[in-house]
């Protein structure tokens, strides 16, 4: 049997110590009226060699040039050292650092992660991560509702937010009767239409979500949106791409005093596409809101000899202490993936991350020129980061089918070119469409 070390002699000896003679007797408290499982439909076990062949046979084709799809998951180069270190058993097979003295490695990594995320977003604090970008947004909205003492239960959510995030938000918020008001976009710029905001100046709105860049790849007028929210005492939730924040104005600086809560998908920071996960969601906020934050937090402290150390803190917010009164039901974070992101950011440094952002933008600009020569039309005029919506005169299969999410955009594809693309990749892609 794989992974079980017991010899028959071990089993007999252990049964004897318990006072039994048959292993089946271990289940003698289970009522006999309960039937035994029938697993006859399951195959017999494979050994590791057979399993390897099966996994290789089923693996999708590896295309180093990628497929120019972004739409919420982005192909970036990952230095070899990242996953080599993440795969060390001491990180890979540890659990939540409940015993701080035996978990200083994981705890310090998270503390460094919290520091870099807060720095990158120009915010005061970051938590230790959430499941992914979409659940981070849902948790950010719930947090904003709590900050408004649950008196205001309406949230403004632009249609330029990733439709996949919007449907997750709907699943979570519909359980609690929170109203989501979707904001329209300006068909010319591809960004949230500011004019419509005037109808929401009635002190009933808890929060405004501001994506940067938005799902079209376009840059939103974040300063104006933040200014409107601040004027109307609406909390601002920034939803940002972390790579882009090495190039674009960080949420903590929007309209000078900054967003209140920042969230997003951490996958671009050293996490492979891997068919959709595991990724991680990040969540940052202003210091004064930290007690309403969901998820784990690591704090610095000292031991009785004054030595510095790290530990989970503010656990009184969490479900294992507060149970039904917890801020969230969240129990795990995406610890291992955060280790990857922390190593990635440490290897690249800020300059390296900024180069990734610049090169991605540059490649997308190059590709745009090539596609325009093929008489494809860029749909929106707002500045973009590393994705563009292109309209073609006939249906094509390259990039992501954004017409499926926005039927009003006919024959349109969302196309992404990150730093991983060579000049030749861009030319070949433009020729194919």
């Amino acid at each position, binding site marked *: 049997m794989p*992974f079980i070390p017991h010899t028959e002699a071990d089993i007999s000896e252990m049964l004897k110590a318990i006072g039994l003679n048959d292993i089946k007797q271990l289940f003698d408290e289970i009522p006999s009226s309960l039937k035994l499982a029938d697993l006859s439909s399951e195959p017999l076990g494979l050994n590791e060699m057979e399993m390897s062949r099966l996994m290789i046979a089923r693996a999708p084709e590896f295309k180093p040039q990628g497929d120019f799809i972004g739409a919420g998951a982005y192909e970036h180069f990952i230095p070899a050292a990242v996953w080599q270190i993440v795969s060390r058993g001491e*990180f890979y097979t540890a659990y939540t650092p409940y015993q701080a003295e035996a978990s200083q490695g994981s705890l310090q990594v998270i503390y460094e992660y919290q520091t870099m995320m807060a720095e990158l977003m120009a915010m005061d604090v970051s938590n230790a991560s959430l499941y992914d970008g979409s659940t981070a947004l849902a948790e950010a909205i719930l947090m904003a509702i709590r900050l408004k003492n649950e008196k205001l239960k309406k949230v403004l959510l632009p249609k330029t937010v990733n439709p996949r995030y919007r449907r997750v938000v*709907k699943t979570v918020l519909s359980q609690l009767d929170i109203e989501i008001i979707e904001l329209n976009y300006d068909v010319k710029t591809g960004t949230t239409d500011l004019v419509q905001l005037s109808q929401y100046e009635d002190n009933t709105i808890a929060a405004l979500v501001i994506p940067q860049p938005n799902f079209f790849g376009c840059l939103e007028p974040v300063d104006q949106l933040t200014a409107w929210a601040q004027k109307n005492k609406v909390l601002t939730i920034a939803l940002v791409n972390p790579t882009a924040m090495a190039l674009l104005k960080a949420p903590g600086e929007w309209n000078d005093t900054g967003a209140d809560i920042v969230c997003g998908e951490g996958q671009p920071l050293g996490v492979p596409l891997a068919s959709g996960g595991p990724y991680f969601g990040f969540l940052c906020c202003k210091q004064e809101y930290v007690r309403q934050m969901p998820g784990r937090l690591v704090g610095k402290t000292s031991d009785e000899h004054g030595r510095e150390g790290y530990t989970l803190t503010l656990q009184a917010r969490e479900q294992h202490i507060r149970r039904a009164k917890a801020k969230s039901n969240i129990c795990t974070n995406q610890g291992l993936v955060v280790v990857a992101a922390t190593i990635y950011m440490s290897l690249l440094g800020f300059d390296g991350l900024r180069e990734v952002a610049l090169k991605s933008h540059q490649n997308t600009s190059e590709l745009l020129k090539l596609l325009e020569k093929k008489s494809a039309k860029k749909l929106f005029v707002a500045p973009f980061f590393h994705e563009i919506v292109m309209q073609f005169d006939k249906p094509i299969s390259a990039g992501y089918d954004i017409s499926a999410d926005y039927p009003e955009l006919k024959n349109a594809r969302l196309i992404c070119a990150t730093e991983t693309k060579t000049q030749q990749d861009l030319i070949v892609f433009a020729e194919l469409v």
Partner: protein
Amino acid sequence: MLSFEKSAQNRRANAFKLNVSEVKDIPANYLRTTRPHFPELAELQVVRHFTQLSRKNFSIDTQFYPLGSCTMKYNPRAAHVLATLPGYFHHHPLSPEKDSQGVLENFYDLQQSILAVTGMKKVSLAPMAGAQGEFAGVAMIKAYHRDRGDFERVEMLVPDAAHGTNPASAVQCGFIVKEIPTTAEGDVNLEELKKALGPKTAGIMLTNPSTFGVFERQIQEIAKMVHEAGGLLYYDGANLNAVLGEYRPGDMGFDVMHMNLHKTFATPHGGGGPGAGPVAANEKLAKYLPLPMVAKKGETFYWETEKNCPSSIGYLNTFMGNAGVLMRAFIYARMLGRNGFPRVAQIATLNANYLMKRLEKIGYQLAFPKRRASHEFIITAKNLKDQYGVRALDIAKRLLDYGFHAPTIYFPINVPECLLIEPTETESKEELDRFIDAMAKIYEEIKANPELVKTAPHTCPVRRLDEVKAARELNLRWRPEQLSLIEGNANL
């Protein structure tokens, strides 16, 4: 030392430099003008920094890790290597289905294995953790009652021994939580359950074997009572390892459940995640399962969406859950096969009962001495605290000195000074005997030199940490000490 403190201005890991030109087509008001503090290090410095940090961790690969309720079994290396083959590693989740058939087939086969061991009708792999599976399951119960026009069922029953996520998930779906007490022998108190049941009952959330490490013997009776009252039964799969391949929640009378693949199917816990918490349901609730799910038509696999599942509670995450975790779980399940599953439950139970008997012999007090252990069991240090002032926490810390990770402590919350011990099936008899020896030595220390135990650990990188200070002074990030030396607002 933190990475930031090892940093030197303008140092780079040069292998990752890119040739770029400055941006021209984005107006200046969109651009960043401040420089965040990231460490500036060479590649070797980074590698050494994180390698050294890893050595400050206890882990399954380095230590016995009997953390009750967490099923810290061996995480096969093959699962990690095979799930990260280049074809899987670089695969975009929105790639066309025709290019993703192998990925979908792996998920489909995992779905089949989960149905086989749970006795349920249909399963969704979408939930990213047990707690998200609970949320989904409870939302499905809510949808079921609403579809029947039954809006009065606002109460979710939860035994007092349940995981904290159970009541928290129920509240997140808008339910009122009602706690049900348990008996001195660890079973649900049927009298109290009877009183709690009624037209307001939406359902009950149970873990079986329970968090007391004993099998709920009245489960069939409970199922009958709850169903007769019009409620549904949710199975928290945290302890499925105890009965894997032997008994199935579907046969016990449960309607919906989640299982923790990072426990039962050996995927890594990674310092606190990622996990995966697939949710499975019987005929009554299958149509409400979260999206997406993999289905098969002829020889082709495809994603089910709201088009063919209009009653679904919806999507729980951006793509399809923690795909890489699911891939590892599939590999584990396929390597076990139909003969391997029941062997897991048998040996996990054998290890727990062996450990329990041997610790009892040393003198430790069992929380449920008359019961058979499931895959885990509880000892209580209440007598040791009364007599010697040594708490469960102290025993846990002293175990670290002997090179063992501590068991879960102070959970379940209604057993005073408890240690919840789960050895799992992948630990050898020799390892268990070493643990028993350490526990025997600690028992002697408690009597002879309680201070030694109360001041443990003595061999870890730090002594006991001041948690009150951590919460009161709340230092959640590094900040440069000499702000004036850093160009805080320098142009890039």
